[in-house]
């Protein structure tokens, strides 16, 4: 699975830049940091989901992000001409409908487990059997995980785990991408400070050439 992510990093980056450019061109100049952060994050998430392809969580993420009105421009930009088709493909049954059913099941299950507990309590001497305790812990954590992973509420045990696996990998790739982007900006800003504006063009050029080596070394690793 790591192999597939390696190939997709380029596509992801491309989509990311596209999203950033769209966000830049569509926004007015005096923009708050919050909005910029949101637009950056949105474009990054969308790019990641789009570059990953069609997995469960990407579909859920895209449909969730596409549901909001203000994101449609970004979506259109990233998806290009195929926006209409892709939105139809990526549309997903909203979890609200399923949650209805889920609630009933959960309620009945909770009732069941409560009954189990009571039965166990009645049977054994005031001690809940450890298997039931373990099962409750696991279930609680599964619920939390379902909330974390996009589209996770609709999945059951094993598919939830495989989706988390995929999601963790792509999150890691996203973080790496943004980190190296950040490093690039850091270096550029430090370079701006370093160079003496009064130096001649040629001197500046040579200085830059000399300094670019370490920069390349830095990015070669990422």
């Amino acid at each position, binding site marked *: 699975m790591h192999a597939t992510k390696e190939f997709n*990093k*380029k*596509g992801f*980056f*491309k989509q990311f*830049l596209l999203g*950033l*450019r769209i966000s*830049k*061109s569509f926004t007015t100049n005096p923009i708050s*940091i919050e909005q*910029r*952060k949101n637009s*950056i*994050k949105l474009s*990054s*998430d969308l790019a990641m989901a789009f570059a990953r392809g069609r997995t469960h969580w990407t579909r859920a993420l895209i449909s969730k992000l596409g549901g909001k009105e203000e994101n449609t421009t970004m979506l259109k930009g990233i998806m290009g001409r195929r926006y209409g088709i892709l939105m139809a493909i990526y549309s997903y049954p909203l979890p609200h409908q399923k949650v209805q059913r889920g609630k009933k099941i959960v309620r009945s299950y909770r009732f069941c487990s409560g009954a189990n507990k009571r039965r166990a309590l009645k049977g054994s001497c005031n001690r809940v059997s450890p298997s039931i305790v*373990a099962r409750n*812990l*696991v279930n609680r*954590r599964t619920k939390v*995980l379902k909330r*974390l992973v996009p589209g996770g509420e609709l999945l059951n*045990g*094993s598919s939830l*785990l*495989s989706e*988390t*696996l995929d*999601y*963790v*990998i792509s*999150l*890691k790739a*996203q*973080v790496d991408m*943004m*980190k*190296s*982007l*950040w*490093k*690039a*900006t*850091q270096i*550029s*800003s430090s*370079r701006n400070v370093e160079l003496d*504006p009064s130096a001649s*063009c*040629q001197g500046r*050029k040579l200085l*830059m*050439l000399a300094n*670019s*080596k370490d*920069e*390349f070394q830095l*990015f*070669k690793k990422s």
Partner: protein
Amino acid sequence: MEDEIHPLLHPAASPSGASFTALLGLPPSRAVELLHEPTFPSDPALVDRAARFSVFAAASSAPSPEVSPPPPPELAKKRKDAGSGNGKAKIKKGKPAEEDTDGENKLPYVHVRARRGQATDSHSLAERARREKINARMKLLQELVPGCSKISGTALVLDEIINHVQYLQRQVEYLSMRLAAVNPRIDFSGLDNFITSTTTECGRLTIGNTKVGTELDPQQQQAAWSEVGVSDANQMNNSATSSKRTQSQLPQNQLQQFWHVDLLNAQNHLQPSIWAQDDVAGSTVPLLVFDRVNPGFGIFVLSLCPKLSSGFPIGTIVLVPLLEFLSHCGRC
């Protein structure tokens, strides 16, 4: 009773070796009869079936009753029962179970790895298959999340996974905040052209048709340089800023004009034809993209496409832009 069970429970003590673990489940008479057979795999059909029904057989392989050699009758009956039962009992958990209830369904001489299991009905088997799938995924996740391999127990591992996912999500948020707080002059748009070209054709670059050249010396365009992705270029294009302002911005930006070359890899992977081309306004003029404001980006992008970055001949790169840059700088 225990005397009979004893040889079953300790197959190592039996004369025929340790592969009789499957005999443990058999009723005593049958087991004794098998134990006293002269040669171990006397029946080729038996061996064949055992091989087919070993744990490593594919789950979908059904017990096919097309074994040709006619076995002795009671053995056939036993085998048929065992075969049908064992077809489902391939995946067995190693739990110490009651040895009498499911004994009749076990095929003798099943591969050693076949675990003694519980009931062999389809429900528990499906349950077991599902559990194994979940455990396999959990193992993968354990490997992925750092520090998780030492933890045992599903709940704690899930805890770690949840923490890791939350940590990554928070990191994305934090990094996007940092990127947003960065100098807003940094513009990412120019690299887009570069990326689209490289994804299509690695090794060839395309020119970005920005209108920046109108402000600068047209000589630069002839020499096939394009300034891509400058924020003030966008301003010149899009907004209705006055030309005075852009011109005043230009000298300031020239201070930060950087040409980004890949100096380290001076191998000539690119075909010489690329550099021999002398197209002026076409979209396929090979050139080096550089970013005025963000020197890091060029190299950053180059690192993404290693094939590309390894192909720049050093001489051509350094000389041509230097000349152009100097000629342009001379005017500032």
